[in-house]
């Protein structure tokens, strides 16, 4: 474990020429194949929650099959198990999940809703080459990445029944979708650059007026009988500093199209940017790629719109909370 992390740090710092990286990776690959724990760490690192490209314009036409049509055979069982893991990911709490979220908190309507990163928009687009890590990312790795970052946990290993069921559910929701062709409704919408730079203090007002009723005054969510009815947005029980949602632009697009729940697209773009900045200016669990130095980790992994390694209220963000 330790060795792998050290090697990764070196790779990720990107001081070595590309050729060397490839050689190193080949050697690494051989070592990694021999150990399950190592291959998990490797996979987690391979998915950087890279920002998705903008979805093509146009109206959303794709629809997933009906739940009632899940076949009654071993394949159907895997689809149903995958759906249950997706909507109640808390059943993996402590094993693969380290926070209070479920996949479907961000992938609304069980991963079916357009403009809420639907699974039918995702599955047909993998494997995909990502320049950022110079690697062909598979859907398995993408899902594992969500466990590492969005769920602040440890991903289920390749070939595990959990990962296989989740992939099967992604596949089934994509029945009839063209392979390798991005569909309108994929990902979260990209908002235009706002007229005024996103403001944490304006965002706080938007938050108190539109979000606090469900997510609580301090972003900790609302619990009923031990379950979160409204999920936590920051703090120890939410997604970590490596998750895609911690980018202000990604959160702004999600919020605009999906929040407040029941009132989508009711905020102005500026309000969505501001409240996204407010939400993401708070502490959350540490980036799992943290190498002991916030500035260095920021330099390698956080060259995007976020608050990691920035000062908010005279405090450095990116320290992490447990």
């Amino acid at each position: 474990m330790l060795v792998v992390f050290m090697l990764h740090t070196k790779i990720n710092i990107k001081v070595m020429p590309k050729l060397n990286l490839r050689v190193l990776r080949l050697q690494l690959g051989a070592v990694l194949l021999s150990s399950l724990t190592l291959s998990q760490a490797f996979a987690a690192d391979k998915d950087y929650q890279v920002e998705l490209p903008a979805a093509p314009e146009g109206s959303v036409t794709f629809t997933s099959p009906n739940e009632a049509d899940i076949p009654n055979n071993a394949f159907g069982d895997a689809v149903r198990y995958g759906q249950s893991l997706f909507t109640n990911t808390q059943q993996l709490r402590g094993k693969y999940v380290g926070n209070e979220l479920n996949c479907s908190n961000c992938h609304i309507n069980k991963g079916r809703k357009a403009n809420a990163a639907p699974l039918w928009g995702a599955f047909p687009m993998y494997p995909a080459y990502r320049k950022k890590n110079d690697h062909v990312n598979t859907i398995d790795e993408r899902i594992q990445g969500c466990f590492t970052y969005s769920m602040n946990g440890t991903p289920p290993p390749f070939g595990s029944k959990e990962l296989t069921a989740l992939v099967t559910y992604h596949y089934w929701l994509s029945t009839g979708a063209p392979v390798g062709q991005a569909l309108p409704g994929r990902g979260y919408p990209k908002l235009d650059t706002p007229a005024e730079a996103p403001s944490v203090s304006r965002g706080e007002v938007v938050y108190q007026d539109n979000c606090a009723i469900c997510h609580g005054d301090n972003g900790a969510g609302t619990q009923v009988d031990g379950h979160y009815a409204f999920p936590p947005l920051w703090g120890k029980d939410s997604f970590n500093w490596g998750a895609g949602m911690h980018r202000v632009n990604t959160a702004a697009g999600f919020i605009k199209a999906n929040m407040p729940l029941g009132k989508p697209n009711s905020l102005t773009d500026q309000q969505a940017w501001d409240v996204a900045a407010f939400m993401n200016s708070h502490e959350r669990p540490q980036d799992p790629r943290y190498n002991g130095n916030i500035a260095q980790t920021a330099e390698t992994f956080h060259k995007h719109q976020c608050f990691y390694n920035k000062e908010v209220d005279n405090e450095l963000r990116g320290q992490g909370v447990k």
Partner: protein
Amino acid sequence: MLIHNKSIVLTIIMTLSPMALADDLGQTIVMQGNGKGAMACSICHGASGAGQAQAAFPKLAGLDPEYMQKQLEDFTTAKRNNPVMSPIAKALTKEEAVAVSSYFAQMPTPAPASANVDEPLIQAGKRLAEEGNWANDIPSCFACHGTNANGIGANFPALAGQHASYIEQQLNAWRSGQRSNDPNQLMASVSQRLSEAEIKAVSAFLANLSVTEH
């Protein structure tokens, strides 16, 4: 049996606690009115807070006390415009409104009075309550009103076992703007997107649900 035991415990608590006075006040108003323009709540809502389905008088037993207080306050303004309740709410002092709210809140929730047997209608309502209708941006009712519509805090009232006639009437009141006291206009927004058929179905389904004990 369970309920019987509970009421014994409640009686003991009531006689011992400082809440006893407020409860006496609540009970007096519910049973007799306040003698200053607010008639007895029990005339319409029943002594056990069960309401009346035919007249669309809501069930109040077991609802969140703060939620009920807020409704009484809003009945005194244009935010919840209701010809029957407005004069009554205006005749209550703040203290009396608090007392009746907590009196109804601690009552055991009665079993659903209606047993609608229109199975396809109930099933359509169940789908909406559990899954929503995302083609039209309608989230599931349970997402905000809690699993089984048991209610979440003061802002998201319990709907399980509420009379279908009343739920239907309120959804229509939001659509028309007659009721506009919902926090953040969440219900105004959702009800605008519901069809007549969906309103009928979801109201029937919710009315048939039994409240599960917390």
